[in-house]
């Protein structure tokens, strides 16, 4: 079992249909699940709906969670699949692309220096330039420091495939950032 003790207890309560355990689960993981959905869907409203669906699916199928993986990995797998289903449904209607990454106001602290802010803004711009698959892999890899194996479990891609794609995405990010830096240094 790769879950912590509190999580084990919550999972047990969820299996018994506890609403308060469900509330705890939503509070604990909502930003992560939403961020994954957002990285795939790039639309705030759709991402919130997908995140809600994820939690409901998790509640309905909690008995299927066998503890072989981390609980978060299992939950993010549901979020990933739910978002992919949303994209499939969307293809029958229209493509939506209305979200751009930016520095969230609440994450900035007083101590945070200008350099860090600049770096974060730069990173937001770089992430916006990534392709959808690269963005998803980067999100899964960095959001909660998931290992490549966990990313594989969530996306159902094989390990070498994930490694290659992640490397390319990181390289692309690095290239864009170093290019921007060198352009800034010219002035």
């Amino acid at each position: 079992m790769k879950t912590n003790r509190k999580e084990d207890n919550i999972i047990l309560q969820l299996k018994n249909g506890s609403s308060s355990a469900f509330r705890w689960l939503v509070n604990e993981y909502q930003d992560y699940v939403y961020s994954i959905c957002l990285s795939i869907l790039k639309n705030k409203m759709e991402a919130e709906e997908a995140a809600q669906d994820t939690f409901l699916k998790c509640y309905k199928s909690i008995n299927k969670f066998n503890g072989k993986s981390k609980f978060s990995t299992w939950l993010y797998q549901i979020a990933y699949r739910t978002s992919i289903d949303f994209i499939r449904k969307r293809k029958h209607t229209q493509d939506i692309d209305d979200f751009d990454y930016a520095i969230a106001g609440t994450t900035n602290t007083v101590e945070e220096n200008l350099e860090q802010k600049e770096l974060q803004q730069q990173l937001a711009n770089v992430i916006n330039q990534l392709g959808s698959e690269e963005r998803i892999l980067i999100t899964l890899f960095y959001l909660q420091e998931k290992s490549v194996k966990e990313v594989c479990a969530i996306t159902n891609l094989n390990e070498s495939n994930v490694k290659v794609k992640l490397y390319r995405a990181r390289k692309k990010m690095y290239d864009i950032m170093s290019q921007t830096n060198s352009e800034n240094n010219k002035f």
Partner: protein
Amino acid sequence: MKIGFEEICKYIDGDLSKDQANAVANAIKNDPALKEMYLLQNQVNESISTVLLNEVSTNFTLNTVKRLEQERAKVGQFSGVKWILISLVSVTLFSVLIFAVLSAYASPVVAESSKFSLTLPQAFVESISNFSVGSWPVFTMIPLFLFMLVWIDHLVVNAVVPRRKIA
């Protein structure tokens, strides 16, 4: 060992052996370009999660819990409809089967009154009128038959009505 961006990433991620990690560390110390690459990638690793993590709207938890309660209520209504369907299908199936058996095996008239007449299979009537220890297979068949009927019925209803059960 050629050291480039990939090796720097592996070094940061801790994916290298001790010897390889030492080689990368030395290269970073001695090569300013590699050092710059390492520092930038390290900064990216430290700051990226703050960019990737987005906050949900303020009512998200409340709305999600509400949706769960709504789904639970739906399931309550749904199970009522489901059981009515099961009962209806059971009664219909049972009637059809009884009718089929009676049509095939009934003897002319078994019970008759001034208001109605009833026909039953000869074997069944005989087993009742001449009840003995030897007639037990007929009586054993009745509950078995009923059990099978309910089971088939359950399968039919589950196949027709989509499953939306909530734990």
